[in-house]
């Protein structure tokens, strides 16, 4: 399979697998996988090739590919331990393009053959980390040094995303109901909420600062409530503005999805408007709404990242600190948890959605 070929080529070709630098500011000197690990490269190469072998059943192929990915990581860790043994503690070993290509192609192979084997990769990486096999890798050094800050950034990130989601729901639910009752109004809302999506996200986050500053100047009482023009407020407002569309659209779609015949039957039975809503419309709307909620949750986790630009903190602050210092480890340290959180939220929400969609 093509994915295994890409991963193997990345390991065997003279691509920089590891970058070794005297400190974290200087650019590293590239070391290819063959130079870094010698004949040990054969271990991941064989495992990845097995992972792509069609004769193997899916679970065995996925397991081989997962072991191959862990082996790539282990080789990088071992090579870093080896190369940095004689150098000053400030010396850094960072991942190179060859490593990234091999890891991404390997993980894609795992996902193709059996996605749940991704757990095995996580367990393998955790074991390597616990055994000290990754200790000299720059990313791990940075993560250990910033463990506390990183942990609080993750919680801030989740809190911001949750607040934005709650606010968006608070706005979208009444809007969807009003738009459902008066379709003409609904069309206007749809156009307005879609229009928001065209505003570049960084601009909306940035423009909220002067707007909020003006508002706080006009109504100083708000300042006493702990609201500020910089910080969590612009991040939550801007994120909620983008989340409103998927929530509103799925709510409206869900409300409209009730079969008119079912509604008429309920009316004929003498149900009041409120009971029709509770017993006919909402149960039918729920699965559609669940899809919109999933999109909104995943988007919230991603969009809140830009809060780092307006002083809200969270993982975005780590990413932007890295981007402004050209510190790749910091960028990864911020971006990898966001990626994992978004994927985890997507998987969980998808499972919940499938359960809802199944007729009771």
């Amino acid at each position, binding site marked *: 399979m093509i994915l295994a070929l890409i991963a193997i080529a990345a390991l065997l070709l003279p691509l920089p697998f590891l970058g070794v630098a005297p400190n974290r500011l200087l650019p590293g000197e590239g070391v290819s996988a063959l130079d870094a690990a010698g004949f040990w490269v054969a271990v991941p190469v064989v495992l990845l090739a097995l992972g792509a072998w069609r004769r193997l059943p899916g679970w065995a192929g996925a397991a081989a590919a997962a072991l191959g990915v862990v082996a790539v990581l282990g080789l990088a860790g071992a090579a870093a331990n080896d190369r940095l043994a004689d150098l000053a503690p400030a010396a850094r070993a960072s991942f190179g393009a060859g490593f990234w290509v091999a890891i991404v192609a390997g993980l894609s192979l795992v996902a193709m053959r059996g996605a749940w084997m991704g757990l095995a990769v996580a367990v393998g990486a955790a074991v390597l980390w616990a055994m000290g096999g990754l200790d000299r890798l720059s990313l791990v050094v940075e993560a250990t040094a910033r463990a506390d800050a990183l942990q609080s950034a993750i919680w801030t990130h989740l809190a911001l995303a949750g607040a934005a989601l709650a606010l968006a729901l608070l706005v979208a639910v009444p809007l969807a109901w009003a738009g459902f009752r008066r379709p003409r109004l609904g069309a206007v809302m749809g156009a307005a909420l879609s229009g928001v999506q065209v505003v*570049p996200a*960084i601009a909306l986050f*940035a423009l909220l600062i002067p707007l909020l500053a003006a508002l706080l100047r006009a109504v100083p009482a708000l300042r006493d409530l702990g609201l500020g023009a910089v910080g969590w407020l612009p991040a939550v407002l801007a994120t909620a503005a983008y989340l409103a569309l998927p929530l509103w659209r799925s709510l409206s779609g869900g409300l409209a999805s009730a079969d008119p015949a079912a509604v008429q039957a309920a009316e004929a039975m003498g149900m009041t408007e409120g009971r029709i809503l509770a017993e006919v419309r909402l149960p039918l709307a729920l699965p559609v709404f669940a899809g919109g909620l999933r999109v909104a949750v995943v988007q919230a986790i991603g969009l809140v990242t830009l809060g780092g630009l307006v002083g809200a903190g969270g993982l975005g602050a780590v990413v932007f600190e890295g*981007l402004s210092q*050209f510190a790749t480890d910091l960028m*990864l340290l911020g971006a990898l948890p*966001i990626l994992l959180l978004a*994927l985890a939220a997507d998987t969980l929400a998808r499972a919940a959605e499938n359960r809802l969609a199944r007729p009771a």
Partner: protein
Amino acid sequence: MKRFRRGVPALLLALGLAVLAMPEVAAWLMGGTQGPYPAARLLDLALDHAALSLAGVLPAGLLGLVLGVVVTRPGGRGLRPAADAAAAVAQAVPPIVVVALAVPAFGFGWAPTILALMLYGIMPVLRATVGALEAVPPETRLAAEAVGLSPRQVLQEVELALAWPLVLDGLRVALVLAVATTAVGALAGAATLGTPIVIGLQNQNQVLVLQGAAATAALAFLADALLLMAVPARD
């Protein structure tokens, strides 16, 4: 002409936003004492921005179209779950995160942004293509087969011909989103209309932020208008 009229609201919106992005207008609105971004350089950035958006969206559109055709063929149906899952993952990862992950691998410049746009653009086109091909009535397909067309001719002359407007609609959505998203590239060192936004944020110059935002939105609506006018109306 009907197709021409469809694009007019977006075109007017684009014009209004372009006026808003003009240095004098933005500076007057913000009451700024700091210098605005010169119009000539804003125009240069707009061209770079448009080129970068196209460089990301065209491969994504092609990939989405090809994938959409493959997973609706009898031989490719098995790939459908994998393609759906891959597109969903690509959509779940926000562009800014893709950029932050791609910078260590590819360095600063255009590459991280193109990658992010590609990942982001596949899903709308894939979804539109699959939806449009599945909406072709089975009787039409059977009739085409009955008159002796080969599977390839059925695809080219019947299915794609019928699906084309919907596919182009998906491409339009992907392009508009891409133009808005390309602004993020400024954080990875690509010259885009996000550049004044980032400079403005760093120097607390709100005039630059407004100019960059308005110009990006203007470009997005312009792309929307042009494609709306180019695509035949469906009805």
